[in-house]
């Protein structure tokens, strides 16, 4: 509203939209919006987790009796819990270790290299992350069967390597992109050979990204249920145990194990973040073995390493992940349209999956945009940091535990708003998909040129007009990317769904069921369908991925 004199005012014909935007830009609306958004956030994300703590405290006596002093079993259930935790953590640790080994050269290749087919490779590397893990698990199972590797710990490790690998590569890529190539050039003019540059400049600068990716991969591995059930054989990991405890209606024990998983995951996260901050001692940092560092800087080694990791990646990740395409056999129609009409089940589960996905994503996006604004833009000091931390919790803790927490909070045992079934699946999926929508929006908001918004404000646009014309177009790719990420995540989720689904089925759960019923052809077919859908969705995110266009 620039100072306008009388003759000029007749030139202005404000549309209803402009008037509304001006009105809504007033302060009161902002406060109301803040309250609504924060209430949603606390109810959806924080409350179930707090609830599970109180639940455990309430039932502490019963849990003690069940675990340690059971009349029939003694403390054998406690020993089983310990066993399952050990299986989960050892698998996660080994899987991440293998990932890191083969991820580095590929990440470097994808960021620094310039070769034909780079985009395709990039897409293929990311795909296992988007595909429902139960479909992936089934594919891996079929692949390794060729090598006579049967369900068991080794196979679990192979599956986990496959679906956690993209998390590491992705985070390494992001970290590498942030490193100014000029720093590496500067180091090479300062007489450092290629390997030494990597050791002294690149690696220290991407260390945090590597750790972030490692944590993410580790927690994902820790929490995975769908693929693990398929490949586990007799091994029982912690999330599987939660699921089976829930099936046996041993609720207090299940809540105890869930809480244990949540606490351990969060502690681990905290420790790693603290350790990551420590700096290497200067003396150690400068220990450079000149001769062999110069020697291995020769191009032949870097090519060798790249070829090795490429082959390893293909063997461990790419081929097993898509092996299933070759497994759709001729007995499929008979099985699918046979007596028990599997096709109908598949169709219903698909409807459930997609319905859940769409509703969840829609609710998410409505709340995620204002929440991302709060996270990035408000200067609330420590509160921003705390909100940011809470937002990470659903990503960190095993989804089975999270599902159980949601079940306790919203279900009959809690405030009784939803019964196991599609409604409760939606509540659960809201919890763990919300961060997936918020993260890319927040990331893009941070990159929005604040100057553009200031320019718009000084040019007379109200706050909401500025948001509509300047901010929204700048973050819309982030919004779409977040929505698709949340949708694929919802589509692929197994662990939490198993706990809250009641009689309803989603596709990944259906796949697990069929594998257990040895209806392999139908399972393979369902897997292929969801893999194709996920691949298409991932392709879509690529289109909307924020293009790194040098626009001012």
């Amino acid at each position, binding site marked *: 509203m*620039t100072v306008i004199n009388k003759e000029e005012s007749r030139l202005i014909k404000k549309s209803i939209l402009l008037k509304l935007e001006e009105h809504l830009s007033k302060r009161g609306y902002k406060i109301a919006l803040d309250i609504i958004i924060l209430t949603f956030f606390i109810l959806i994300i924080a409350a179930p987790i707090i609830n599970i703590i109180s639940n455990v405290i309430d039932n502490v006596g019963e849990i003690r009796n069940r675990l340690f002093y059971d009349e029939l079993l003694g403390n054998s259930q406690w020993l089983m819990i310990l066993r399952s935790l050990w299986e989960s953590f050892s698998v996660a640790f080994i899987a991440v270790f293998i990932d890191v080994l083969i991820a580095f050269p590929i990440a470097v290749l994808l960021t620094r290299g310039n070769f034909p087919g780079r985009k395709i490779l990039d897409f293929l590397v990311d795909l296992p992350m988007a595909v429902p893990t139960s479909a992936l698990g089934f594919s891996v199972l079929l692949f390794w069967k060729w090598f006579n590797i049967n369900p068991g710990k080794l196979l679990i490790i192979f599956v986990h390597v496959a679906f956690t690998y993209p998390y590491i590569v992705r985070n390494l890529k992001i970290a590498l992109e942030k490193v100014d190539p000029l720093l590496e050039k500067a180091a090479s003019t300062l007489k450092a050979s290629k390997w030494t540059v990597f050791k002294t400049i690149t690696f220290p600068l991407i260390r945090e990204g590597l750790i972030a990716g490692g944590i993410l991969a580790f927690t994902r591995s820790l929490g995975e249920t769908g693929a693990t059930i398929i490949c586990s054989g007799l091994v029982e990991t912690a999330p599987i145990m939660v699921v089976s405890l829930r099936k046996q209606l041993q609720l207090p024990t299940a809540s105890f194990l869930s809480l244990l998983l949540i606490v351990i995951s969060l502690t681990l996260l905290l420790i790693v973040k603290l350790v990551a901050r420590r700096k290497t001692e200067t003396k150690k940092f400068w220990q450079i073995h000149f001769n062999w560092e110069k020697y291995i800087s020769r191009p032949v080694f870097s090519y060798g390493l790249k070829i090795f990791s490429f082959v390893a990646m293909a063997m461990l990740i790419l081929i097993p992940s898509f092996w299933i395409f070759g497994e759709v056999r001729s007995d499929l129609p008979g099985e699918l349209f046979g007596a028990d009409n599997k096709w109908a089940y598949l169709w219903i589960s698909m409807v459930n999956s997609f319905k859940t996905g769409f509703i969840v994503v829609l609710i998410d996006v409505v709340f995620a945009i204002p929440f991302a604004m709060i996270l990035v833009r408000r200067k609330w000091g420590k509160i921003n940091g705390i909100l940011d931390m809470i937002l990470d919790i659903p990503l960190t803790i095993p989804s089975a535990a999270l599902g159980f927490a949601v079940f306790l909070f919203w279900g009959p045992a809690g405030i009784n708003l939803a019964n196991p079934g599609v409604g409760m699946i939606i509540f659960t999926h809201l919890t763990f998909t919300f961060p997936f929508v918020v993260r890319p929006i927040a990331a893009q908001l941070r990159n929005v040129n604040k100057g553009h918004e200031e320019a718009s404000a000084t040019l007379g646009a109200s706050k909401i007009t500025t948001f509509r014309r300047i901010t929204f177009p700048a973050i819309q790719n982030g919004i779409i990317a977040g929505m698709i990420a949340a949708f694929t995540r919802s589509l692929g989720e197994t662990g939490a769904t198993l706990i809250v689904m009641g009689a309803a089925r989603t596709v990944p759960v259906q796949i697990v069921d069929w594998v257990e019923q040895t209806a392999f052809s139908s399972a393979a077919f369902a897997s292929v369908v969801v893999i194709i859908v996920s691949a298409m969705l991932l392709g879509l995110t690529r289109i909307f991925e924020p293009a790194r266009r040098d626009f001012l």
Partner: protein
Amino acid sequence: MPDIELRNIRKEFNDGKIIALNDIDLKINDGDFAFLLGPSGCGKTTMLRTISGLIQPTVGSVFIDGNDVTERPPQERGIAFVFQDFNIFPLSVFENATYALKVQGYTQEYIIQEGERVLNIVGLADRADEVPVGWGNGDLQRLGLARAICSGAKILIMDEPLGSLDPKISAEFRWELRNIIKDQGLTAIQVTHNQEEAMAIGDYIIIMRDGNILQQDTAKVLYRYPNSLFVGNFLGGINILEGYIRKVHPEDYYDVKVRLGGPTFVIHSPTTKFHLDENVIIALRSEDVYLFPLEYDYENSRADWTGIVLSEGMVTEKFLTGKEKRYIVELDNGDSLSVAKPEVFQYEFLCNQEIKIGLFNEDLRLFKYPDNLAKEMDLQ
């Protein structure tokens, strides 16, 4: 008419740990083109942002056109901003230029008419439909200027608008900028790092340091009669000599003796008072030092030379700086002076040549001896 007044403006950051603006009072009249100048971190950008409403002052009020606008958001102040990094929207040239009219709900006919008029002023009319990707910085800033003018605001605030331009382009563009602002009858405030630019196109200059306004005046007064050593040095390098007051004359004349056996000058200082034996700094601009060959008979050969001959000295360094030749000369008492002479200067001296040095008492300025001389001379 749109004048700007700041009353007792104070801006603190980090809970008062940083004082960006220290109780500033300032008035800028309608139609003025004012420059804000100062070392980095002096508060000049904070001042611009306070006036435009992009940040709120901790204490004090901003008046525009006589109205208190302190509480108003930027879009309601009638101010347009031109940014150093342009902040051109990813829209077409025309859409960028007419953005302000669009978001204020002007009629389409008016938008088209105004857009064409303003793009003509800045010389971008024939590129109206382009999207300005890959444009040179000079053209981007033209568009930034068009966008600001088109908003209809009568006050233009510019934060280093020429700072990202190649020196050559910036030197040409600044005259155009001044012409446009004056033709449109705008009141303008510009921040710059470039002293020459401020002196060239500003009506007057406001010099700031550490959140305070040190001096506000026309370029000529600031350059010739700075009220502090800092201001004098900031507008162009000066020579300083350390001395003390040997005698106080009536009507603010002082006998000042340069230390280490240097000469004595009679210096007029109407604004600052000094007492006997007080330590002082004598400042002299490098172009106000005159150099003569040893054999030059300054009394008889030139009628208009009414200055004094300081002493003999020697040229120790000599280099070209583009418009002038610069000599570093060493005086008998060990002090050295930097001397700037136009290239068309009648004499040419060589390194290690003995010369005579002359000056006018009237060109000498006298300042209190600062607590920290190095800090006072540090421009950072």
